[in-house]
């Protein structure tokens, strides 16, 4: 099947029911997307399908179709970061960093849909993304900074 990942079309030979997570990680070697729980309980595997955050561990490869898949690598690079990534750097959110790709993808999806989220909106949107290190106070602050920056842009 064909998958459009970060603007590039890949031909992959995988089962229809292989989770997108494992197509990305093991077949296409895109490692920014992380395996955490396998059951959509942690959000580490969050990617965008046509701009909307989904858990790639619970998204079958066969269901993606022509949707554009964006991973953290497609959001920005260390030299040209997305506003959300910039905010994450500015607030030095990460500790172990393992959940942060998913957090950033979730936050970017939230801000695309809701450019001026309230605290309650942030809590609702981000509570599916687990951070075992407990960086939540910085995540909240970084989401707000990113929102302000995107508004200016």
């Amino acid at each position, binding site marked *: 099947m064909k998958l459009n990942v970060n603007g590039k079309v890949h031909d992959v030979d*995988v*089962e229809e029911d*292989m*989770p997108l*997570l*494992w197509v990305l*990680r*093991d*077949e296409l*070697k895109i*490692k*920014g*997307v*992380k*395996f*955490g*729980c*396998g*059951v959509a*309980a*942690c959000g*580490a595997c969050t990617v965008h399908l046509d701009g909307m955050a989904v858990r790639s561990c619970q998204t079958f490869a066969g269901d993606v179709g022509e949707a554009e898949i964006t*991973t*953290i*690598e497609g*959001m*920005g*690079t*260390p030299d040209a*970061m997305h506003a959300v*990534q910039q905010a*994450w*750097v500015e607030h*030095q*959110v*990460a*500790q*172990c*960093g*393992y*959940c*942060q*790709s998913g957090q*950033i993808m979730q936050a970017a999806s939230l801000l695309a849909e809701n450019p001026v989220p309230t605290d309650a909106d942030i*809590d*609702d949107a*981000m*509570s*599916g*993304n*687990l*951070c*075992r*290190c*407990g*960086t*939540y*106070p*910085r*995540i909240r602050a970084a989401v707000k900074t990113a929102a302000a920056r995107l508004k200016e842009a």
Partner: protein
Amino acid sequence: MSRIGTIARRTFLVGSVAIAGGVAFGYYQYRKPHANPLLDELGEGEAALTPWVQINADKITLITPHSDLGQGAASMQAMLLAEELDLEFGQFEISPGVPSPAYYNTALADEGVPFNSHDHSFPADAMRGILGVVVKIMGVQGTGGSTSVPDSFDKLRTAGAVARETLKKAASEKSGINTTALKTASGKVILPDGTEYSYQELAPIAAGIEPVTRVKLREPSEWRLIGKEVQRLDILAKSTGTQTYGIDLEMDGMVHAAVKVNPRQGGALNSYDASAAEGMRGVLKIVEVTNGVAVVADNTWRAFQAAEAITFDWGPAPYPADMDGHWAEVANSFVEERLDAEWRNDGDVATALASGQSVEAEYRAPYVAHQPLEPLNALVLMEGGRVDIWVGHQFPRFAQQKVAEVAGIDPEAVHFHQQFSGGSFGHRLEFENITLATEIAMQMPGTPVKLTFTREEDFAHDYPRQIGMARGVGRVKDGKVDAIDLQVATVSSTDSQIARLGQSAPPGADTQIAAGAWNQPFAVPNFRFRAYKVPPLSPTSSWRSVGASSQGFFASAFLDELIHAAGADPLEERLRLCNHDIARKVLETVGDMSSWGTDPGENRGRGLGFVDSFGVPVAEVVEVTNTGDGIRIDKVFVAADVGRVVDPVNFDNHVKGGVVWGLGHAMNCEITYADGMAEQANYFDHEGMRLHQCPEIVVKGLENASRIRGIGEPPVPPAAPALAAAIFDATGIRLREMPFNKFVDFV
């Protein structure tokens, strides 16, 4: 010469050596030099030199041997070296180096204890106790016990200074100008006329001269990096998905493995039927491993699926099958035969308790899992009589040893490649992923095998925090706390860990059964503390803050009950009892921060927790609202004294993370066994804290203590008792057992 300089001369003799095209600066062991496998060509007495700083024509590399588990250890170690070496972030690379004895004895020898040996103040004894355990368990290069900063602070600054002064000496030889006229900045030696020599161009000269070993470390007022807000070295990679963890490694010809091991930990594999798995797509091999079966496939998910298709007949658990059996064993342990130690007996407890108003309470702390977000994994290649292993681990030398034992080769033939870890909290002190991956790789020589645990397998084989109970009896008199008789019984995580290392338990009491409880800075006139060791049940391990995570809750919460019974104020009474100036300032500070004593408002409550662990006094005030739909944690104030805050941004993040860890698990988490198996299989059963439950957290780091200490663990223990006290204040409900969500709802 400064105090640090004296220490450096006495214990940290530092040398240098030529390496290919450059120079490496490192340490001599004092007293007992170890043979250095890397530098065999060196003469006697120079053999223990191992580099912290390597400079060659291409680059400068700083070696950061304490594992980075997410706590920022790599960045912190580099900062200490770069401070004295006058390097800017961006001018060097970092490397975890290779496991070596030269990285440990300087850290964990007696001299490594950050107190004078004649200092028997309570934190000194507490710290020695901690390090005693660390030494007993590890005896080697290790990361744990919040020791990375205290171990590194003098050593790495000294290493940086030695490298700097030797480079200046090299520049002096090259230019003929006296070293006292030379300056260093941004990776260069600068002559009086402005001429600059880069460290790289000086490296070949530095390699050929006697290193300067008498160095004076800079005064705090001269620091450019320490104590300043700097950007962590890994922050860019971790914000852009470009940080590589062990689980991300790829290698030509690599295959993917999954395991299913008896979920009754330590139980046997009686039989299995893999016929359904054999024909599944991508399956390359199915092999037996200790107490289980591994599937090797061409894709991680295919390996998971095939492992799931195997049916098993598992043997019974070598411990009580259900929680009633576990708790009964704990409850039956408050007896003379199981007394591990009477840690304290001040005043006359028996007489004091014989009259007046007494308070009795019993507390419980459950098993709790570590479950860092990066699942356990390991990449192993066995080829040509050597084994290479790539994994994130807290004890590289022991990992090497374990692989060697499984593979039947010398530890020297095991090449360990340290990886960044996606969290640990004590989980990466264990070896099952490493031994299992080695067992699989041995059955596929020449093929790199990456083993990845499913989250369910990881939960099933997490060796959780110890289970424990406390029984307290106390008396109050004239509005004051007069007597406390506290008894704690827990299984020994120390013994459990040591048994898995194939060692016998060290002599003496287990400090962790008493940690956070016996040695608190409160002069209660009559105070007895007894620790009981519960016989081994299911395996347990060190969990962020170890013994103090449960015992700190018991001691702080019981003191709170007594203060309430006395009709006293929780902060005022602690201040009255406090016999340690550093702790007093911590308590006063958190009182000021939280406006303690003011009315918290309608349906609201405020609670104080204080625990000194790992030599760090930490006070936390938690504010809650009883919303009607459940308890909401609004705000937490934290004051802690680590002597010196090396990296203020990371300190702040780390303290907040410790509070979230302490609160989240106290509220929501336990591991329970049924039919010998953990009933919690994934995060929905044991999720810690999620963002919507996270309060605002205000942190203040104090620097009054004379010695520097680590902050990874100490913020955890006070969180649970502070939350329990706040809920009591708001609702009148006393919580004496974790997790609290068994008794109250949280929004």
